[in-house]
């Protein structure tokens, strides 16, 4: 019997806002404990929530980018439960009226090789709603400690349909979703900072069946790789359970990425009973056409649309676009450089290879780079016109990465301009030929490699600044004469 995995993902994404969802104290990560609180966050008596307009703009933008239907009107609900991470004893969320419904995430599955584009698919979304994040608990000696800095941070929950069928697909989904969020300036999606969190609902069924099997919720998937590994592990576990005549039990399991094991979370029999009801403290949200239009105008091109356009418009290959496009700033950098020099392929190579390598080695972000699109463009032109040779260009690149000087200045300072005086080159070649009659005879008798014997002396005479291609041409012409 072969089984098919059926996976739905619930992804929580913190919105990038200055203040919290329902109050104006700052939102942020990495601050000392309990320094980002106010009476609303702590649910002190008499406080009232007030919506953050920017958070609403951002979820509308997320919805538009993902092709969702934006609710013309929606309300807020209280999700009631007792847990010390939530001082109100309820979380403000959206129950039956999410702000966004439907939509999809375009994903790219792994290709047959890293340099070959994989198949693209659309993963349908169920809904996206907005809520507030909760505080953070740490468990100490005989007690738990609560830090409310995170409590009240705008949090979007993105729910996919159960249409994902493998761990690789789930990984591709998260990768694509993250890219859209970053392009849209909606969230930085840094998992280490808890800005993106993922739970997976996983079940298996005999391949071809339409009915869904019993699902297991996998929690604590705190990196993209853990999501992939955790899902693969859970699917294997379920197939083994069913294969040995057992039944999958509906439960929540915790996946430990370090050990690669999962264990059942014995949440008490208490089935979730959140007693949702409309929050009387908050008025509804109405999104009209004018609002949607104003957000739509500011929406960026989607990453995969951009990748297709770069390949079509500039003729740059997948190997380059797949490196550039996941980073919006990097792909913008590329477009600027390509436009300035008119040589997109060469510019793409410098950026995807040399620039990224240097940034990585120096542990710098693109925004901190001293090399600008203009630097890359001018360097490309110097190489293309033969003003400098490619090995000299590498040296120029590293220099300008460190100094920020433009290529011309670096070339002049380091004396790297290629030797282009044809008379001089002609003389060096003649001298080399005259000094080595044996190799001349060898070459003329058909020993092709004999020509290399002349190149060393020529390059030495040129102090390495002669174009090897031109040296070769000149030698052949003189030897033929």
């Amino acid at each position: 019997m072969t089984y098919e995995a059926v996976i739905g993902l619930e992804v929580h994404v913190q919105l990038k806002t200055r203040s919290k969802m329902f109050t104006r104290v700052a939102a942020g990560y990495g601050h000392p404990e309990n320094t980002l609180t106010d009476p609303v966050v702590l649910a002190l008596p008499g406080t009232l929530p007030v919506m953050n307009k920017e958070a609403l703009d951002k979820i509308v933008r997320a919805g538009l980018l993902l092709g969702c239907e934006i609710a013309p009107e929606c309300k807020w609900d209280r999700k009631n439960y007792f847990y010390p991470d939530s001082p109100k004893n309820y979380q403000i969320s959206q129950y039956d009226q999410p702000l966004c419904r439907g939509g999809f995430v375009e994903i790219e599955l792994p290709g047959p090789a890293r340099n070959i584009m994989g198949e693209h698919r659309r993963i349908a979304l169920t809904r996206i709603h907005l809520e507030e994040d909760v505080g953070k608990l740490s468990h100490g000696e005989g007690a738990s400690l609560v830090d409310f800095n995170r409590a009240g941070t705008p949090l979007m929950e993105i729910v996919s349909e159960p249409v994902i069928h493998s761990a690789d697909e789930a990984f591709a989904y998260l990768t694509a979703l993250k890219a859209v969020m970053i392009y849209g300036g909606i969230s930085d999606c840094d998992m280490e900072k808890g800005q993106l969190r993922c739970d997976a609902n996983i079940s298996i069924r005999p391949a071809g069946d339409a009915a869904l099997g019993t699902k297991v919720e996998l929690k604590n998937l705190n990196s993209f790789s853990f999501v992939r590994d955790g899902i693969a592990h859970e699917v294997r576990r379920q197939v083994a359970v069913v294969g040995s005549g057992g039944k999958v039990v509906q439960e929540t399991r915790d996946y430990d990425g370090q050990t690669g094991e999962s264990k059942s979370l014995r949440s008490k029999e208490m089935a979730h009973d959140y007693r949702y009801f409309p929050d009387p403290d908050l008025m509804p949200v109405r999104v009209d056409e004018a609002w949607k239009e104003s957000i739509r105008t500011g929406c960026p091109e989607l990453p995969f649309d951009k990748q297709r356009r770069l390949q079509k418009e500039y003729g740059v290959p997948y190997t380059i676009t797949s490196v550039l496009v996941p980073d919006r700033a990097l792909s913008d950098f590329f477009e600027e450089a390509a436009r300035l020099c008119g040589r997109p392929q060469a510019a793409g190579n410098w950026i995807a290879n040399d620039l990224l390598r240097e940034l990585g080695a120096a542990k710098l972000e693109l925004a901190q780079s001293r090399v600008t699109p203009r630097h890359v463009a001018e360097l490309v032109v110097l190489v293309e016109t033969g003003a400098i040779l490619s090995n000299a260009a590498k040296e120029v690149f590293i220099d300008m990465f460190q100094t920020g000087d433009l290529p011309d200045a670096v070339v002049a300072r380091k004396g790297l301009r290629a030797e282009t005086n044809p008379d001089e080159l002609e003389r060096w070649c003649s001298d080399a030929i005259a000094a080595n009659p044996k190799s001349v005879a060898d070459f003329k008798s058909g020993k092709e490699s004999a020509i290399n014997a002349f190149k060393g002396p020529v390059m030495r005479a040129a102090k390495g600044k002669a174009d090897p291609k031109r040296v070769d041409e000149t030698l052949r012409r003189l030897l033929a004469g």
Partner: protein
Amino acid sequence: MAKPEDLRLDHVASLARIALTPDEKVRFATQLGDVLAYVAQLNEVDVSGVEPTAHAFPVVNVWAQDIAEPGLSVEDALRNAPEKRDNMFVVPKVVE
């Protein structure tokens, strides 16, 4: 009169984390039953021409711009905490 089972009093009490004695159950069942009967009068109102709404007021989009303002100092934030440690609130150990 509603009986404790009808009201799912045990379930409601457990959701509210309240332990009730048998006497209290009887007493609260009566009281809650009265409240529900009182509210049930709303069922007699003809609302066939009324749109469902979560609010009585036709007000929408009450919001503030996203401008961060100073919050509480850690000292003030923790002032009401029955117990504190390392600038955090101490609660009974919860492990899920």
